[in-house]
């Protein structure tokens, strides 16, 4: 009797355990072909639907090239790309679907749960050919597009997930998209772990976009992209990007390495950027932009290395549309080491960042609010930045007696170089209330006509243990104050 009971219990237990275990389905089961020429879209979709309807599991791809158009991932389905397996995106624009009538993607999901893309395999978007085929169809008159800047505005991404919960993208290599590599839009509990992004096949190709997500961990990734590499965005004024941690990543870009924005409608809250490296990057290592009316608060950036990168730090508040007032409060940047080159840091990229905003000498880091909308409570601690110096007033000049010449640019597209020449070589800080600089080392390798730090309309600041080194600096101020009050040096 007892043993019977035990048996029944065992059976029940097994009955409970078995269905919850993810089942593996080999792609061959669905007639999916690895020859690189068979278009597998419909077969892969059938496989996903079948696994989804049968309680979930993994669709496993082994070595081979799997040509496909858009596929729609469904709840409880994992696409597992084994080592040597390549999901190859079609080069035909018409093989792609849109999600929300707005975004094309190779792998799409909307309102799905427990979805994942895993394995050591590759997703290859064949982006250059695809983007050019889009242009051909515009010239043929079949696709309508203004071809602004010579490219079709909306091109397929590799991944577009919207309003999904429990999303995992792990281990895979994402390469050659025709557009932003991957967008996670209003997702919850997102894990991106150990992926490699090679996004150099076309331009305006963000590495990853975390849009209005709640709860995301991005870690151990390598991202190389011809637009912002790791990018947090806020597309919706009714949403906010929050509880995001970006940890142990390496990024390289012909735009910015780690960026908040430009779309910043709802804003960013409780974000940690920990122990990342940005190298060979045209624009900023870290830039936080509040220009669309969103709230930006409680941001921690710690242990960031910025090597051969055009600008270490750029914090900016703007008002791109009148009346949409943003807010930036409580940003803390610590343990940052940066080397800024005298030459173009992304030289040699197939799609280099555009040389613009000249003439200007090497731009300083910037913390720039608006006269009527100040950035509040910024801390810069244990930071060391090596600049090339060499600012030449005969090339471009904003003297300390003409600080009002620096334009207010609330409506401009925000970039660290947007003001052209700035009057400092290390830090330019304007319209800020509450700023702490502690143990900050700024080094210019050559004599520069500008001082290291300029404060304009800055209030309630503490500057302690500031070390500035510049050859033949003479007696000029290290920190120059203008219209500023309550500054302790």
């Amino acid at each position, binding site marked *: 009797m007892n043993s019977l009971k035990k048996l029944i219990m065992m059976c029940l237990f097994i009955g409970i355990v078995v269905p919850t275990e993810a089942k593996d389905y080999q792609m061959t*089961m*669905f*007639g999916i072909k690895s020859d690189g*020429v*068979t*278009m597998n879209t*419909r*077969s892969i*979709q*059938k496989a996903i639907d*079948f696994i989804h309807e049968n309680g979930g599991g993994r669709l496993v791809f082994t070595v081979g090239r799997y040509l496909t*158009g858009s596929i729609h991932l469904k709840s409880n389905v994992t696409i597992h790309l084994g080592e040597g397996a390549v999901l190859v995106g079609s080069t*035909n*624009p*018409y*093989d792609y679907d849109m999600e929300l009538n707005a975004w094309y993607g190779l792998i799409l999901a909307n309102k799905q749960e427990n979805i994942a893309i895993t394995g050591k395999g590759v997703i290859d978007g064949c982006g250059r050919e695809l983007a050019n*085929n889009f242009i*051909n*169809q515009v010239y*043929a008159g*079949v696709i309508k597009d203004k071809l602004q800047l010579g490219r079709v505005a909306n091109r397929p991404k590799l991944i577009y997930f919207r309003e999904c919960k429990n999303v995992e993208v792990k281990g895979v290599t994402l390469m050659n998209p025709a557009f932003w590599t991957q967008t996670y839009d209003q997702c919850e509990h997102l894990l991106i772990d150990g992926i490699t992004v090679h996004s150099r096949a076309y331009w305006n190709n963000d590495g990853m976009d975390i849009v209005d997500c709640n709860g995301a961990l991005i870690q151990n990734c390598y991202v190389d992209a011809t637009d912002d590499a790791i990018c947090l965005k806020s597309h919706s004024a009714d949403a906010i990007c929050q509880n995001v941690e970006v940890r142990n990543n390496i990024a390289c870009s012909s735009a910015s390495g780690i960026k908040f924005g430009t779309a910043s409608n709802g804003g960013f809250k409780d974000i940690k950027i920990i122990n990342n490296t940005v190298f060979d990057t045209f624009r900023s290592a870290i830039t936080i932009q509040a220009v669309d009316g969103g709230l930006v608060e409680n941001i921690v950036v710690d242990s960031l290395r910025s090597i051969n990168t055009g600008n270490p730090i750029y914090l900016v508040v703007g008002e791109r549309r009148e009346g949409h007032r943003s807010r930036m409060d409580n940003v803390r940047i610590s343990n940052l080491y940066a080397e800024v080159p005298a030459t173009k840091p992304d030289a040699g990229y197939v799609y280099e960042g555009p040389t613009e905003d000249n003439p200007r000498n090497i731009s300083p880091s910037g913390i720039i609010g608006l006269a009527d909308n100040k950035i509040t409570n910024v801390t810069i601690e244990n930071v060391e930045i090596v600049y090339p110096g060499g600012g030449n007033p005969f090339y471009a000049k904003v003297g300390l007696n003409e600080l009002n010449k620096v334009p207010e640019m609330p409506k401009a597209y925000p970039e660290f170089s947007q003001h052209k020449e700035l009057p400092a070589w290390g830090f330019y800080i304007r319209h800020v209330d509450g700023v702490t600089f502690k143990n900050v080392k700024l080094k210019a390798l050559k004599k520069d006509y500008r001082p290291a730090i300029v404060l304009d309309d800055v209030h309630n600041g503490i500057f302690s243990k500031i070390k500035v080194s510049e050859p033949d600096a003479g007696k000029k101020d290290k920190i120059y104050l203008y219209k500023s009050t309550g500054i302790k040096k």
Partner: protein
Amino acid sequence: MNTNKLLVSVVGLLFMVATLSAKDYQVSMFGIKSDGVTLNTRSIQRAVDYISEQGGGRLIFYVGRYLTGSIELKSNVTIRIEEGAALVAVPSVYDYKGVEGCNAIIYAKGQQHIGIGGKGIIEGRADAVRASVEDQLKKGHIQGTTSDYLPALICMEDCENVKIEQVTLQNAGNTAEVYKNCRHVTVDKVVVNAGACDQKAVSVSGCDGLEMTDCYFNQLVEPLQSDGTSRNLSFTNCLTSEGKNITIEK
């Protein structure tokens, strides 16, 4: 005054000609590939949609093999397959419309003024498609019988003014031509190569006005299947490989 009248009438005539003559669109314009390996389903569909949106015209396939799954023909569009061109069925069962409704390589539902013409071929690759269907049935990913999933070559449902001419239809996995509840259908000089297959070549039901002329059915079994629900059917000089004229009377 007279010259003015003349001018007006000439302009009017030109305008009429311009609107009457259907515009021709080459498949290459839509990135459709003739290599026999690129699956063109979505590009062909986009082309058909585009031409229909533009008011109609002919989509012209020149020499080459054009791999495709199911495509839906839209009003005022004619698919023209020139001599040397073949629309070739893709083997995978999942590239067809499936068991609901009109399952075919070219299908149309509720459309008007549509056509398929040219001296080219629609190649059904029955063996390859059947292999895919049977494989997926066996694995339990689809349910039913093999014939449920085998596509026709042409299926027209609830359509009006349909014109099929000159093309060769071969190796259909299922009935080559299906006409359901259509009005004013003309089928002229169409060759169906079915060989030893025991499928019917043409299925007609609920139609009003179907005229078939100078067609040839290269097959041993009776090519026509009609359930008696159609009116005004006429068959003129439509022959089987044994020289029998096909008629509506059995």
